[in-house]
């Protein structure tokens, strides 16, 4: 059957390379969605329904128990921003660790690059966390349980910085996991320890000063504080340093991309 005149993988210019790249990423995305969610019941909607359910349960739980004592901060916004952020930086690495082992046979199709596999997975997690965050925000707002953000642009900016952090962490841990099997075993307990420390369940300002200094070494905490500052900043004193986050993001991106590049070289990519 003819391939519209062109040989199956003829090298072309930059435009064609971009076309191939888009095609491959699109195909990988749809493949991921199909293999993870299938076509049964609500199918790919599980992509964001699952994180929404998680966030909703946590939000309800925290709202009911009023976890932060004697504070006037809006508990719904606090829980929504906190748990949505967790989903982002925890699920991206979770999906990228060991991602290659199950996708190795795809490399028989020479237009599929190893990095594409990681990009597809990170993109899907970003979409899942974002849709869940936005939809829940709208629903809770509609139910009058939540005020809209004070500064939407700041929330968006913080959210993107957090996504970048998640992607960099995912690339790095994903790349490391192909080299060291231990990463696969250590990430679940690691993320479990980081969960309470990452700011999902506390405001930095509520901690003693000595503790603040320690937890602020965690880059994602700066993103969470920044997002909350944009959401309900007039109600509390936020602590964040975006330059610190930016530095961490760049470091993780460089280390992640070079690790993946190394795997690619070993697997015969030019």
């Amino acid at each position, binding site marked *: *059957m003819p391939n519209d005149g062109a*040989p*199956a*993988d003829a090298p072309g210019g930059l435009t064609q390379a971009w076309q191939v790249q888009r*095609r491959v990423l699109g195909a990988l995305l749809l493949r991921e969605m199909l293999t993870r969610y299938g076509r049964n019941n609500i199918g790919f909607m599980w992509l964001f329904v699952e994180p929404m359910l998680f966030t909703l349960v946590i939000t309800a739980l925290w709202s009911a128990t009023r976890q932060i004592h004697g504070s006037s901060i809006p508990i719904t916004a606090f829980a929504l921003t906190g748990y949505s952020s967790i989903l982002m930086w925890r699920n991206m690495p979770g999906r990228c660790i060991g991602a290659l082992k199950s996708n190795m046979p795809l*490399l*028989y199709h020479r237009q599929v690059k190893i990095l594409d596999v990681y990009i597809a997975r990170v993109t899907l997690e970003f979409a899942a966390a974002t849709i869940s965050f936005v939809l829940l925000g709208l629903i809770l707002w509609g139910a009058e349980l939540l005020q809209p953000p004070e500064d939407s642009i700041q929330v968006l900016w913080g959210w993107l910085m957090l996504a970048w952090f998640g992607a960099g962490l995912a690339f790095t841990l994903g790349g490391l996991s192909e080299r060291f099997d231990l990463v696969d075993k250590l990430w679940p307990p690691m993320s479990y320890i980081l969960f309470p420390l990452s700011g999902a369940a506390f405001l930095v300002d509520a901690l003693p000063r000595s503790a603040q200094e320690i937890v602020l070494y965690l880059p994602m905490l700066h993103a969470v504080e920044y997002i909350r500052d944009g959401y309900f900043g007039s109600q509390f004193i936020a602590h964040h340093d975006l330059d610190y986050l930016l530095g961490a993001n760049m470091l993780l991106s460089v280390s992640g991309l070079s690790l993946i590049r190394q795997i690619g*070289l*070993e697997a*015969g990519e030019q």
Partner: protein
Amino acid sequence: MIRLENVTKQYDTNAGRRTVLDNVTITIQPGEHVGILGRNGAGKSTLVRIISGAEPPTSGTVERSMSVSWPLAFTGGFHTTMTGADNLRFICRIYGVDFHERLQFVKDFSELGSFLYEPVGIYSSGMRARLAFAISMTIDFDCYLIDEVIAVGDESFRDKCRVELFEKRKDKAMLIVSHSHRYLKGNCDRFLLFRDGKVEEHTDFDEVYYLYKVMLGEAPQR
């Protein structure tokens, strides 16, 4: 053209470093049909993987100016929770070709019927091989890698495969790995005999087959 120059492939095993291909140099011209013989583990499939680009050589260079298929009837690339049709759709997407026309072809060719819409995980190995072969025939390549493909299906299906490959695509280059006398003899112009990591070139089938049989330790009868 495909050219392998001084290609060496070594694997680290528990018993130490094992050399599978030792300084191999071969050229495959457009349209050439090359048969490959050798014992199990002699490096035939390794060579196929290196040519396809799924694995790099330890040292040496691989040059490709033709498009090269994935190994024909290769079932490892399927996602078992996706249906046969969805697997085909994925292939069509990454190669940027029309799906519907090819679905019809795969339907007719694979004779899988409604199984095409079931997860590949529930297929028998014969069904998987039939699907893989049919999908392989939907994308056009300059060079086809054929690794033990003849085990696919029954007599009539094998016959269909023969027509698709050796009649409709007889002007394409092919690299055929096989143990089958009948299959190699009629279809190849050249032969490579694998022995201890080295590759010997032969053009006469009867001669190479005799050497192969001697290598296997089977009583030669000429």
